[in-house]
């Protein structure tokens, strides 16, 4: 087959086909267009301000490595005036994190950025190895996920930085849209696509500058720039992506390569169509902790195959609860009622609370991490953590409907 010329420069040999428009580009044009588009996203959303200190959540994996490389390039090219640094979390998983942390350390040298590594052991007194020893391999991802989210915020706070950027890409966002639709989570549907994770409950801003970048292009960018990144699966969650929404997304991409951004577009539109009164529900509870519960560093924002089963279980429970006309009780005893402010603003006005134990921002008296730690420390794992959060928002009128049905059915 004769080599194809680049769509852009019409000269060099095309080496990639862009998923979003099927343009065939050469290496140099691809790299430059990829960077320009991230720049346009940053400018279009006013993501940064000059002089801002920004921490890049770095795992050593492809997404965060590409993010660091691109941000460094753009910061220099367009004079953003950003003060960039790398922030890594050491979960304490021997044989897994060791190697990826080495990668991050090399990245710090390559990109001339200061690096901070914060360990779970330091923060929580437990490494993941120790957690797994206690709770077993099943369900340990929940711990890791909750710990990780706090860890990034705490690390940033420690450095006096108010903005953390993460490597979430368009595939991650698309997956989140699909999952939120499947779990019927309207509050999260209303905000899962936004580039900045709104943080009414936290003073640390979270954003994802690669939100519109296809995972495929991220990998190719890393390949063609020969970036130094590390890949392995977390040894505690092998095959985590199997049977998940991720598979569906990849099948879709095969059928219509643009579909990942198309899902992001749909998600953004639907977010604006979520009724105001349900948008805020659960927000205070989640915000800083949200982004992909159960996801781990290696899997970024990804779902696990077990998530569907958890959702089904939760739905069945809700159905049952509905038919009994009882309120769903959370394990910690707090009653769940959707935060329905009359205009939705009531939700925003909610005061920020702090965890009584660790002073981390939390809507609960005790934050999620401390609740988990309690369980660990009491030598009783798997205490109370709801897996499929956000299911409480079920249509309450369907109970009534069902009852009427029964009544009418037997009356006729």
């Amino acid at each position, binding site marked *: 087959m004769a080599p194809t010329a680049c769509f852009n420069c019409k000269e060099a040999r095309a080496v990639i086909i862009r998923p979003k428009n099927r343009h065939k580009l050469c290496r140099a044009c691809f790299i430059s267009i990829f960077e320009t588009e991230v720049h346009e996203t940053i400018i279009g959303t006013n993501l940064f301000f000059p002089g801002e200190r920004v921490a890049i959540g770095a795992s050593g994996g492809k997404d965060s490595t590409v993010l660091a490389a691109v941000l460094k390039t753009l910061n220099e090219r367009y004079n953003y005036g950003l003060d960039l640094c790398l922030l890594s979390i050491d979960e304490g998983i021997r044989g897994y994190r060791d190697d990826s942390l080495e990668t991050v350390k090399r990245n710090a040298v390559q990109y001339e950025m200061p690096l901070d590594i914060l360990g779970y052991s330091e923060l929580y007194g437990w490494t993941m190895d120790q957690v797994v020893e206690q709770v077993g391999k099943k369900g340990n991802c929940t711990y890791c996920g909750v710990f990780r989210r706090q860890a990034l915020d705490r690390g940033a706070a420690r450095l006096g930085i108010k903005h953390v950027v993460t490597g979430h890409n368009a595939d991650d966002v698309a997956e989140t849209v699909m999952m939120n639709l499947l779990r019927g989570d309207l509050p999260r549907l209303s905000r899962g696509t936004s580039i900045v994770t709104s943080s009414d409950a936290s003073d640390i801003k979270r954003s994802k500058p690669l939100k519109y970048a296809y995972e495929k292009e991220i990998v190719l960018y890393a390949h063609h720039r020969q970036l130094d990144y590390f890949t392995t699966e977390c040894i505690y969650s092998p095959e985590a992506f199997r049977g998940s929404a991720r598979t569906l997304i990849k099948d*879709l991409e095969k*059928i219509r390569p643009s579909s990942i951004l198309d899902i992001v577009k749909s998600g953004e539109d639907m977010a604006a*169509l979520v009724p105001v009164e349900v948008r805020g529900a659960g927000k205070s509870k989640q915000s800083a902790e949200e982004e992909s519960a159960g996801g781990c560093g290696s899997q970024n924002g990804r779902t696990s195959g077990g998530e569907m089963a958890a959702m089904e279980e939760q739905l069945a429970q809700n159905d049952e609860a509905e038919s009994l006309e009882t309120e769903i009780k959370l394990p910690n005893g707090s009653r769940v009622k959707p935060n329905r402010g009359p205009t939705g603003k009531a939700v925003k006005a909610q005061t920020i609370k702090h965890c009584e134990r660790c002073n981390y921002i939390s809507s609960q008296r005790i934050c999620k991490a401390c609740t988990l730690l309690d369980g660990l420390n009491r030598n009783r794992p798997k205490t109370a953590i709801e897996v499929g959060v956000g299911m409480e928002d079920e249509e309450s009128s369907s109970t009534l409907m069902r009852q009427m049905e029964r009544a009418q059915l037997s009356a006729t």
Partner: protein
Amino acid sequence: MPAKEPKKSCMECNDAEFELTVRKRQLCSLCFRRFIAHKVQSRLSVYRAFGLDGPKHQLLLPVSLGVSSSVLMHILNSDRQNRLSNGRPLGYDFKILVIEPSTIAATGVPFDQNYEALQKNLPMHDITRIPFHSIFDYVPEVNDIMQEYAGSKFIDNSTQSNEERLAAFRASISTPTSRTDVDNILLTRLVVEFAKKSGCESVMWGDSDSRLAAKALAGVAKGRGASLTWQVSDGMSPWGVRFEYPLRDLFKAELLQYESVCAELSDIVIPDQPPSENVLTKNLSIDELMLRYVQNQGAKYPGVMANVARTANKLNPSTSDNAPTCSLCASLLGNVEGNSGVTVANQAEDNHSSQFCYGCMRSRPEKLC
């Protein structure tokens, strides 16, 4: 297998022998039919409530002669007959439209016998059949829209028959996903125009819960998330005709059960084509992929799948009334109000996007590069 177990009575009437298990309850066929019918009627109660004294509401029921729409038709017709013979007010009445299946599917499904059976079964009813290509008569502007949409890929030849013109346009669209997408839009527009011309204020679509879930997921995957508010939710369509989905609380499997206990349906229903086993995923349309996904996952996680359409049904319709809309599918051009995302901006590479929405742009015949 119910037949092999000792005789048990229906959990509802405690009288007849149970024949079917539905939602963990064992019912006789009569109670089962009542249960299903009730699920449908409760979805339409608003038409009944407001139509008791005043002028009757006129609704349109498009029937594909597939299981779901045929079952819906049967339920509505049984109810109608009951009311008429008991002298009770109808509240609403409905017309039936059959778009000839042979003009839609490439395989040329023979359906004349099914249609005759339908007529024989509903002798008192207003039934019309029209071919797909009558869209040129019902939606005269579609001709220009097609030309604009397909660009150089489709040159309309007015000396050709409508059938040939439609075939030529459909042939200009290259992928199964886009073809299914555009076909569905054209079919919807044809049904809507027929409804308007025959004085119907609403269209009752025969989509089961499973189908709606697949439609919702496929719509999202095709960049049509904003259109779910009429493609999956009950509500006003952009053409001023309401859309209702009375089967939204019923699974496909339950509709198949219903068909199995209604002998008269067997001559009417064209059975579903079994999904072809050896089609590669990449050659499926997104709609088919999602239908398969919902079927497969629905076997394991019925609750999750049932929840999809319910969730979509909770979205607010877009409020921007005067915003420009797509000339093909009537979706909003650009973003829904309040969406500041920039996926659209990335896409506006040629001037056609000023006329067609994001989703339709994706399904356009590809430019030759």
